[in-house]
């Protein structure tokens, strides 16, 4: 037995050279190559735009960009959770449209800002809850479920507005969500940053986050540990719906009007950002910081090229190509992880 023990240690010593013993920093780099990669691209692009556009690297432009990206940042946090469970939520764009339309309609109908605000959030949560219940308890693939709700929610948004934009005549605090500034920093950006930090904490520091990753990695294993995985999955969709409807309020109050088509294509922008950041569509790997960089990368390309007077059509071509390139690099260059696992 002693002889066997000797062999045992010699076996297990080999991998010790490849995986660093408790050294937080190199381990972090090894685990986060993708984040570092996208960050590098972000820095290079920002430098590029700073050189070729006079107005890019100004405080004003940066704060504007932050304000414009606030809605995307808020939703990307929850999309990251959903995708990490190996799910997807295609309905966030429609929910955003519905929320934007609904808050305008409710206020126009004479409701107070606070009541309207609450109702919109609850409606978003309910739509998300329906998605979640159908996905987890009726075991229908998230792609189909959220595709269906994307369609019917869009219809609902069109129905309540008749397709027109409706001006928002809300209280000062409500308008401040989209337009206000504190020390010149947009309120929406501050909210987005808080949401991102909380989201990061939830994913990395709580049981909920651990189970989200675990479900994406090996659902059966988590279930057998006695965790209520259906509830966890359901909650991610509910939060996602609620976040999308909050983002709708942010957008509507920024623009000063509610519209049923403001969220068209929004879900794709968010999903693209999350995937760019290195979260795996197969689940099990999720990174909040990566998603945030993903949102900024798409935003910076848009903002920088617009300032350089590039046609918006060409911008779209470039954004799509960058996404494709990034996904190829992520899967084949940085790590064989997702390939190895499937």
């Amino acid at each position: 037995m002693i002889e066997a023990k000797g062999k045992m240690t010699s076996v297990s010593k080999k991998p010790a050279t490849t995986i660093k013993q408790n050294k937080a920093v190199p381990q972090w780099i090894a685990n986060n190559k993708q984040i570092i990669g996208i960050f590098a691209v972000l820095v290079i692009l920002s430098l590029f735009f700073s050189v070729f556009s006079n107005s890019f690297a100004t405080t004003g432009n940066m704060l504007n960009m932050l304000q414009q990206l606030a809605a995307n940042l808020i939703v990307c946090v929850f999309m990251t959770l959903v995708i990490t469970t190996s799910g997807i939520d295609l309905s966030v764009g429609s929910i955003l449209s519905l929320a934007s339309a609904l808050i305008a309609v409710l206020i126009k109908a004479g409701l107070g800002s606070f009541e309207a605000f609450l109702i919109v959030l609850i409606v978003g949560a309910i739509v998300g809850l329906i998605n979640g219940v159908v996905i987890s308890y009726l075991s229908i693939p998230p792609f189909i479920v959220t595709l269906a709700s994307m369609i019917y929610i869009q219809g609902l948004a069109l129905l309540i507005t008749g397709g027109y934009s409706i001006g928002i005549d809300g209280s000062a605090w409500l308008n401040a969500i989209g337009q206000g500034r504190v020390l010149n920093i947009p309120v929406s950006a501050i909210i987005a940053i808080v949401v991102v930090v909380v989201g990061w904490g939830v994913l990395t520091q709580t049981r909920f986050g651990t189970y989200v990753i675990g479900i994406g990695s090996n659902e059966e294993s988590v279930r057998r540990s006695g965790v209520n995985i259906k509830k966890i999955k359901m909650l991610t969709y509910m939060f996602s719906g609620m976040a999308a409807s909050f983002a709708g309020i942010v957008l509507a109050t920024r623009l000063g009007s509610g519209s049923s088509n403001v969220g068209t294509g929004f879900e794709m922008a968010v999903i693209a950002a999350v995937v760019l950041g290195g979260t795996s569509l197969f689940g099990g790997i999720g990174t909040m910081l990566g998603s945030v960089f993903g949102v900024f990368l798409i935003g910076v390309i848009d903002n920088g090229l617009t300032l350089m007077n590039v046609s918006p059509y060409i911008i779209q071509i470039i954004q799509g190509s960058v996404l494709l390139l990034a996904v190829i690099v992520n899967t084949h260059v940085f790590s064989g992880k997702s390939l190895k696992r499937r």
Partner: protein
Amino acid sequence: MAATPRIEMKEITKSFGRIQSLRGVNLELYSGEVLGLVGDNGAGKSTLMKVLSGVHLPDGGSMKFEGQPIRLHSPKEAKNYQIETIFQDLALCDTLDVASNLFLGREPLRLFNRLIDKKKMHLSAQQELDRLGVTIPSTYATVENLSGGQRQSVAIARAVINNPKVLIMDEPTAALGVKEVRMVLELIKKVKQSGVSVILITHRLRDLFEVCDRITVLYEGRIIDNRPITDFTMETLVESITAEKEAVH
């Protein structure tokens, strides 16, 4: 071993449609004993173990746990009796680190029970692994970066953390290299020393002679042989499994 058996299964039957998987199985398991459960494919080993771990409800027969009659309707109920099962490949979350896997579902908490106490979790994980003599580069390593033997060791350690009274292992050494099999077998011996009853299902007969106290042979849903390991040689065991010779019951 005259004491009350930890597990006593009597005349267990189970059918799936027209197929009768178990035709009246009697099985006893004592504390601190490693029982090898063998039989050809389709002999009913896995079904029997699924009955014991609460996955399947038997059609007939009775079970006793430490003398008390029990009926297991779900894996959770089995866990309440400290009956733990390690499955072949469904054990771990590849993208979580070793400590998170070990404590999955029972992470230590801090800050009004909101956050996982990672420091404590990794410390306890390391202590647990040390106690079992499992050497793993770091409890922070993600499981997908471990070797097959290390992964299996983590899976076993995860079951052992619950202080099980009965540990069921289904093919723990399948798909492992020679040295890694050693590692897992040493671990089984360690687990046994702490008083855990182990049921080992394996096709690797050599492993049985290494760790088992007793061998039970299943053949077409019945137990056809049940003797201490010392009564067997490799040849007689193979004969028994293939039922070439009608064995003594």
